[in-house]
């Protein structure tokens, strides 16, 4: 985002890029400090990534090495047995598909509905607009736990427990999305929309054909956050599914991990499972990391 790419803003004392520092004497004087910063950060990074490394390495260990004492760090003999055992015991492809279906539906509906309201709040002058915006801000502050019990009763009454609809509907349009889209849409010049209205374009056409293409970066940010939020969501899927065939990945893994009769003791299988859930997320995150930090910063700075 602009924060990263604006070189002018990077300027606590030793921050100048080497090629930018005109006086090489000053540069040298700052070097020891710089080295210290790098050492500290690298140490921190090692601690941060240790659990991931431990997980990834353990997923490929044999059962002897998993339970060896003192523990083995790097497998001497890499094996896929843990993955094989896990797939035998746990229908991961099914849970993977459940997670994908739910996350895609949640993401698409958020993109459409949050953008619609975001557009109305940013660009349409209508009675009740401020009240609706107040509602959105209020909704941002309410903890999810407050809704769980009646939501479960409601879904039971609607016979939506163990259905995709039951998993998707409570998350189909989030306040965060509305807030984000409104922020971005406000920066679109009114004159542009006014010109389109003069030419006889309807509001839906303006929204869909003019505004939406202009806020593609915001849509990308919202998609990533919503998809990931749904992918990682645990509490509601735990409550809204009883039938193991409708479990999402986190629910399946947690049920497997906390049931002593199932995986209980087998850390190898659990590391393999965690590896398979975390890996796609990490890959997506590293590929799109700019959008993440941008989204967090945008939400925080406003």
């Amino acid at each position, binding site marked *: 985002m602009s924060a990263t790419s604006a070189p002018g803003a990077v*300027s*606590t*004392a*030793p*921050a100048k*890029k*080497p090629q930018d520092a005109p006086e090489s004497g000053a540069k040298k004087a700052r070097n020891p400090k710089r080295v210290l910063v790098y050492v*500290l*950060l690298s140490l*921190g990074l090692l601690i*941060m*990534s240790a*659990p*991931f490394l431990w997980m990834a390495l353990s997923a490929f260990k044999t059962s002897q090495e998993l*339970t060896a004492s*003192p*523990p083995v760090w790097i497998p001497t003999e890499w094996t896929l047995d843990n993955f094989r055992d896990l797939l035998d015991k746990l229908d991961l492809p099914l849970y993977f598909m459940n997670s994908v279906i739910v996350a895609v539906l949640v993401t698409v509906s958020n993109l*459409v*509905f949050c953008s*619609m*309201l975001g557009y109305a709040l940013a660009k349409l*002058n*209508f*009675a009740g*607009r401020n009240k609706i915006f107040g509602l959105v801000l209020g909704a941002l502050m*309410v903890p*999810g*736990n*407050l*809704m*769980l*019990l*009646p939501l479960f*009763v*409601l879904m*039971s*009454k609607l016979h939506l427990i163990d259905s995709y609809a039951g998993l998707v*509907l*409570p998350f189909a*349009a989030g306040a965060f999305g509305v807030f984000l889209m409104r922020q971005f849409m406000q920066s679109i010049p009114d004159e542009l929309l*006014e010109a389109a*209205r003069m030419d006889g374009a309807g509001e839906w056409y303006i929204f869909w054909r003019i505004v939406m293409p202009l806020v593609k970066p915001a849509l990308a940010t919202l998609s990533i956050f919503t998809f*990931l939020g749904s992918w*990682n969501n*645990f*509490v509601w899927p735990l*409550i809204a599914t009883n039938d193991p065939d409708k479990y999402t990945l986190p629910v399946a*893994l*947690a049920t497997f*991990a*906390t049931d002593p009769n199932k995986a209980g003791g087998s850390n190898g299988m*659990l590391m393999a*499972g965690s590896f398979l*859930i*975390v890996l796609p*997320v990490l890959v997506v995150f590293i590929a799109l*990391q700019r959008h993440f*930090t941008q989204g*967090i*910063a945008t939400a925080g700075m406003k």
Partner: protein
Amino acid sequence: MRTMTSKAAESATVQAGPGASESPATGPERRRGGKKSSMGVQNLAGWLFSTPFLVLFLVFMAFPILATLVMSFTDFGLRNVTRPLDANFIGFENYVNLFSDGKFLKSLFNTAYFVVIGVPLTIFLGLVVAVLANNGIDRARTFFRVGFYAPVVTTIVAVAVVWRFVLDPSDGLIAGLFSEVGLTSPDFLGSETLAMPSMIAMAVWRNLGTVMVLFIAGLQAIPTDVREAARLDGAGAWQEFKGITVPLLRPTLLYATVITTIGYLNVFEEPFVMTQGGPSDSTLTVSLNMYREGFNFFHMGYASAMAYVLFVVIMGITVLQLRLLKDNTK
């Protein structure tokens, strides 16, 4: 549904033109070409664009929030899942019972413990990493930012499973470190005194990235010339940090503190996966307690009262934090 809305909105813009002019918008004034018909169209379009969100909001959020409140004054139990209206109104009984319920008081204490230690640690370490990472050149900063932020995006359940193994006293990562120096690892999650600190360590590890990203954004928003002026006046690095960075970072600090506190007050997945609240309820948090009362024992009225107590606590603390940190700036 989507296509219906689209058709409705489009036909609205075509038809509503002249007829709608007698209902001028009452919203705030906007410089907008002064065409009254356009106002009417916008009034209608505004509501049509808001409808899908509002319907979902009312059914799946506003209604459940109010229903929780109503349920908290009833003896709502398992049989009421199919017949909600049969629940009996019992006034404040649930709330009164809560405060003589040792288990609830313990969960309240555990949650407070988690927040009081966890939030300052997360904020402090996040700030330290942000200040350090902000000093690196661009490419290195991105590298470190990605590394420190990675735990935030990963599935909490998987991460909690991994941490359970990391802390395993016989063959975990930490046990390995202990044995390298010839010591035996304590049973972190099996000990009443160590289970909660272990969970706090994991939460700090996982949430530090969010705070760091916020602080980096905040640091970069501080104008360069303010710093340069300070340095010209002979301010040292520490003085600059205290006199300029910290005060100008206060809004970010406020935001980061508030969202971290709210997140930690709701802590659920970590104890659910790592300890199931044990040993002897030493990691039973309010959210986990509420989940158990509601969905394992089906004491839903009682669990609703718990949810509202937690909500009031969260609101109270948030308001307090906003006050305290705002006052300090003056």
